């Protein structure tokens, strides 16, 4: 798929941007803080309704954006995309909220439109599919488990509308369940009919968890077939990379959603005392992890910096390959300042991957010297300075 046009209004440091995009490779170059990354961020936001950077939605609204005729400042991100199934227009407006005296508050509201019709944020996820590569991807390998769960969730949410809805429901149910457990732990309530009171939340939680687990296991299976050769090529080694899903409970033979839900229900009953003592939900997809091994070596723990970088890059290329395989349509690749971090070999592999036919890629760099002259002649170059693109 490809983005044919991107328009921004009062988004980050862009007052106005109207940018037709090439179906192939576009390089955005210029000094730091010029607004290169914001273009990638806007596309990531349209694909996932989340910013890859930390912070609240209101920070997306350009700092100097002014209220007009009583309408509080807002940022608008609009894109025309071309998919196998046809043409689409996606739009998100993030508007800062004001109190009744017209003072800006710390909150913002989000308005989504698909083909000019209002839609829910969840309906937007996956209409445009992107894979974002940044130097910070290293946390996928050496960071906390939440980063690896997020990797799977972002990938699957863009591929499966039911996954993103189930995930949102699951997270709400776990919060309710945690509040119930915490009230007992803190002795604010007597644990009189624990099983009855947890009954509904257990049932809803395990049903959602069964689906999430089944889909994650299936995705890890498919990823393993894809990342083995990718890792060998990137690392120059002969041993393939293996990704293992580490569930928070023993799954035994359960693989489909129904039997996984049943397994979790059994284990929740076995862990009642622990959960009451700790005041939180200890089992389920929100506690799971991934591990990365080559031979018998866990690279998350014992890998060199170079190996870990190779794994992170492999995971991202694997994510893109999985999306292409499942959807029959390549995701848009967003490479944020990736080249300066990589050695010649990894750089060559990455540039090879983005040069596939039918692959749209946007990449940012501060320095054109990172690229070979032949590469630069094949691509579209755009200079970015202070929220303007030339």
């Amino acid at each position: 798929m490809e983005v044919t046009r991107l328009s921004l209004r009062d988004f980050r440091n862009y007052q106005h941007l109207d940018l037709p995009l090439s179906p192939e490779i576009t390089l955005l170059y210029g000094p730091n803080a010029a607004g290169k990354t914001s273009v990638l961020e806007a596309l990531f936001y349209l694909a996932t309704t989340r910013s890859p950077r930390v912070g609240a939605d209101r920070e997306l609204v350009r700092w100097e954006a002014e209220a007009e005729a009583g309408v509080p400042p807002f940022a608008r991100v609009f894109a025309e995309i071309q998919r196998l199934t046809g043409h689409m227009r996606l739009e998100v407006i993030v508007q800062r909220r004001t109190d009744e005296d017209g003072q800006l508050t710390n909150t913002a509201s989000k308005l989504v439109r698909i083909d000019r019709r209002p839609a829910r944020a969840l309906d937007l996820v996956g209409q445009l599919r992107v894979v974002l590569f940044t130097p910070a991807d290293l946390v996928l390998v050496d960071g906390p488990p939440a980063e690896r769960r997020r990797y799977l969730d972002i990938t699957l949410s863009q591929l499966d509308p039911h996954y993103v809805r189930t995930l949102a429901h699951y997270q709400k149910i776990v919060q309710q369940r945690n509040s119930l457990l915490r009230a007992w732990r803190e002795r604010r309530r007597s644990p009189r009919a624990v099983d009855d009171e947890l009954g509904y939340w257990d049932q809803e939680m395990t049903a959602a968890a069964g689906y999430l687990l089944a889909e994650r296991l299936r995705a890890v299976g498919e990823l393993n077939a894809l990342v083995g050769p990718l890792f060998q090529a990137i690392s120059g080694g002969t041993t393939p990379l293996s990704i293992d899903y580490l569930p928070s409970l023993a799954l035994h033979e359960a693989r489909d959603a129904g039997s996984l839900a049943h397994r979790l229900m059994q284990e929740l009953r076995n862990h009642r005392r622990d959960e009451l003592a700790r005041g939180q939900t200890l089992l389920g997809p929100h506690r799971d992890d991934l591990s990365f091994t080559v031979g018998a070596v866990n690279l998350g723990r014992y890998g060199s910096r170079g190996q870990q970088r190779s794994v992170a890059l492999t995971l991202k290329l694997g994510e893109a390959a999985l999306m292409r395989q499942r959807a029959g349509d390549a995701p848009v690749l967003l490479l944020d300042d990736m080249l300066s971090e990589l050695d010649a070999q990894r750089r060559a592999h990455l540039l090879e991957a983005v040069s596939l036919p039918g692959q749209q890629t946007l990449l940012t760099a501060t320095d054109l010297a990172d690229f070979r002259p032949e590469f630069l002649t094949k691509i579209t170059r755009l200079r970015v300075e202070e929220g303007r693109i030339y």
Partner: protein
Amino acid sequence: MTSRSENLVVEPVARLIDELARLPGIGPKTASRLTFFLLRAEAEQTRTLAEAILAMRAQVTLCRRCYNITVGELCAVCTSTTRDQSKICVVEEPLDVLAIERTGAYRGLYHVLHGHIAPLEGIYREDLKIDQLIARVRSEPIDEVILAMNPNTEGEATAFLLLKDLASLGVRITRPARGLPTGGDLEWADPDTLGSAFEGRREL
């Protein structure tokens, strides 16, 4: 905060602004506007407003039997001789009773829980009129209990718990048919949809 600190505003005015600003949907600016409007209004108008608020507090109570809002000991539904005494419809809020009455599709009794199960908001079983419902089902000649909670997560959680509590009492337990928007509030469902959901209720 804003008003009291400004010495220009005399104390009785500041006090009313502060009280009004505590109401939902009213901020300091609207509270000031209302206060200064009342300051200029006829004495008669301010007196009837104050009396209406006091009378509402003094006279309105919860029905001793179904916990709907009422002015006597028992509400109009509970004292009516034409209502079907064998059915109880359980709802979250008094406004739900009004919504169901508007459909004309139901002639039984009610029981108002005054909320739904929501641990995240600190609302648990004991905060609702659940034990009172069970006592009624035990002591009154009830043969059907209709669980008309809102079709959202909290409403479902409440219905689940009630089903457990009522299962052993030998009554039919039903729920209004689907057709209500999930996640929506009963209060806002249109009368036709709500009415047909009641007529097509299913047994649990």
